[in-house]
C-alpha cells in the first residue's frame, strides 16, 4: 500500500497541465431534465405534501418536472466560465432560474477556486439535486431533502482533491450569502435572507467500499411574515443561526448499490431540531434497477414521519431512464412531517390543543435524461 502511495505521489508531482479544465476557446453544452407526474392518495381531499407542497390528490407534473442546461466556456486554459439555467415549477408557475454562474480557476491539478453563484453543498446529493439521472429515485427522500430550501448562494469556494492508494479524497470549503430566497412554510412563500453562509465537506472515494461524505454548513437566517405584523410578530427570524450536518455513504459496484444519509438541522430558538436519515438498497437486473428505501424524520417533541419507498427503474437508452415509485408515508405523535399544514390549521390545532397525524400513498412515474 505504501509503495503504491509513493508512486501515486511521484506521478502526481510530475503532472504538468491541468487536463480537466476546458482549454481556451473550448466550450461544452450539457443538458438534463425530468418529466414526471406524482399523486398523493389516502389523505383527505386537498391535502398536499412535498418540498413545495406540490404533491396532492391530482396527478401533477410540477413537483418533479424540470429542465436544465449548462454551458461551460474556457476563457483561458485555467479559467473557465460555467452557467446553468433550470426551468422549474414553483407554486403553479414555471420559472427560469439562473442556478449557477461562476468562474473557476484551476490553480493546480488538485486545487480549484470558484467564485460567483454556486450550488450550496449541504446534502449528499445537493450539487446534482436537479439531475435525477444521477440518483435512483424520482423523489429524493423528502424527509431530508425538504429541510434546506435554498439551492444556491453567491460566494466563493475551493475544492482540493487528490488521488490516494485506496481511491481519492476531496475537501471543499465555501462562504457567501443568499439573499431574497423564497421559503415555503404553512402553504405560503416567504422571503428569507441567508447571511454569513459558510460550510465545508470532506469526501472519501474508495475503490471497493463506495464513497463517504461528511458535511457541515451554517447560516444566519432572516425571515419576515408580513401578515403577522398586526400581532407584532412579523420578524420571525432575525439573525438566527441555522446549522446543518450531513453524513452519507454511497456504494455502487455494478449490480448492488446502496446509499444512506443522516442529517441534523439545528435552528437556534424555539424551532425544533430535526433529525433524519434514510437507507436505500438496490439491485440491477440487466436494464432494470429495483430499490427499496426506509426514511425517518424526527422533530424534537413534535412527532415523527416514517416512509417506505419501492422503486423500479428501466434504462431505455444509456442516457434516458424510466422510473416508477411507490412511497408510503405515516406520521405519528402529532407530527406533520412533510405534509403541508396551513397557518390557519396550525393556529386552530394550537388553540384546541389537538394535533392530528397524516398518512398517504405517493405514486410517481417519470423519465430522467441527460444529454
Amino acid at each position: 500500500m505504501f509503495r503504491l502511495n509513493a508512486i501515486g505521489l511521484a506521478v502526481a508531482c510530475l503532472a504538468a497541465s491541468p487536463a480537466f479544465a476546458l482549454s481556451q476557446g473550448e466550450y461544452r453544452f450539457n443538458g438534463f431534465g425530468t418529466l414526471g407526474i406524482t399523486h398523493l392518495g389516502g389523505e383527505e381531499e386537498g391535502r398536499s405534501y412535498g418540498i413545495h407542497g406540490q404533491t396532492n390528490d391530482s396527478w401533477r407534473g410540477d413537483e418533479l418536472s424540470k429542465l436544465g442546461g449548462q454551458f461551460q466556456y474556457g476563457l483561458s486554459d485555467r479559467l473557465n466560465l460555467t452557467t446553468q439555467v433550470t426551468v422549474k415549477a414553483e407554486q403553479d408557475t414555471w420559472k427560469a432560474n439562473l442556478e449557477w454562474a461562476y468562474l473557476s480557476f484551476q490553480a493546480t491539478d488538485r486545487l480549484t477556486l470558484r467564485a460567483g453563484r454556486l450550488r450550496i453543498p449541504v446534502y449528499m446529493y445537493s450539487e446534482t439535486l436537479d439531475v435525477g439521472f444521477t440518483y435512483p429515485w424520482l423523489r429524493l427522500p423528502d424527509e431530508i431533502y425538504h429541510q434546506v430550501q435554498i439551492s444556491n448562494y453567491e460566494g466563493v469556494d475551493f475544492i482540493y482533491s487528490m488521488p490516494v492508494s485506496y481511491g481519492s479524497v476531496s475537501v471543499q470549503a465555501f462562504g457567501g450569502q443568499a439573499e431574497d430566497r423564497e421559503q415555503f412554510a404553512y402553504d405560503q412563500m416567504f422571503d428569507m435572507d441567508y447571511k454569513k453562509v459558510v460550510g465545508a465537506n470532506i469526501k472519501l472515494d474508495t475503490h471497493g467500499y463506495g464513497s463517504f461524505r461528511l458535511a457541515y454548513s451554517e447560516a444566519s437566517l432572516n425571515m419576515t411574515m408580513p401578515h403577522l405584523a398586526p400581532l407584532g410578530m412579523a420578524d420571525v427570524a432575525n439573525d438566527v443561526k441555522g446549522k446543518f450536518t450531513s453524513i452519507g455513504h454511497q456504494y455502487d459496484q455494478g449490480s448492488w448499490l446502496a446509499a444512506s444519509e443522516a442529517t441534523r438541522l439545528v435552528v437556534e430558538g424555539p424551532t425544533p431540531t430535526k433529525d433524519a436519515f434514510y437507507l436505500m438498497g438496490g439491485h440491477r437486473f440487466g436494464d432494470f434497477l429495483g430499490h427499496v428505501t426506509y426514511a425517518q424524520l424526527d422533530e424534537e417533541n413534535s412527532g415523527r414521519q416514517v416512509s417506505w419507498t419501492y422503486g423500479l427503474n428501466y434504462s431505455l437508452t444509456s442516457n434516458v431512464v424510466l422510473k416508477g415509485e411507490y412511497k408510503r408515508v405515516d406520521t405519528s405523535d402529532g407530527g406533520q412531517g412533510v405534509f403541508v399544514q396551513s397557518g390557519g390549521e396550525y393556529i386552530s390545532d394550537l388553540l384546541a390543543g389537538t394535533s392530528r397525524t397524516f398518512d398517504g400513498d405517493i405514486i410517481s412515474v417519470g423519465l430522467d435524461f441527460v444529454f
Partner: protein
Amino acid sequence: MKIFARSISIIALTLGAFSVQAEVAVITNHAAAAAPTQAEVANIFLGKDKSLTGIDQEGWNPVKEHFYTTVTSKNESQLKSYWSGLIFTGKGQPPASLAGDAAVVAQVASDPNTIGYVDSAAVTDAVKVLFTLP
C-alpha cells in the same frame, strides 16, 4: 480488496462472455515517466487522478465496454451517470475521445503524458503495453 476486485472482474468477464470478447491493452508512451497500476488507471479515466491524460474511445464499442467494466466496474449507463454527477457539479469533464484504435495508438505514441486502451491486435511498436485485460 484484491479478492473483491478479482471477483468483480470475474463477474464482468462472465457477463462479457455473451458478447464478442476482445482482449484490451492499456498503452502508454515509451517515454512515460510512470507505470500506473490498474487502480490508478481507473482513477485516471474517472477524472480523479490527473497525472496522465486519458485518451478515451469515441462512442461505445466492445473494447470500451470491456475496459470500463473490468477496470472501473461501470457499464455504459453507470459511467454516464457518474460523469453527469461531475459535469453538472462543475467538478470534471470526461476524457477527450478519439475514433478507433489506430487514432488512440497514434495519439499515445506522440504524447508522453497520455494513456489509452485499445484492442490488443491494434498495438504497434510505437507504444508500450502497461497490461492487458484478457
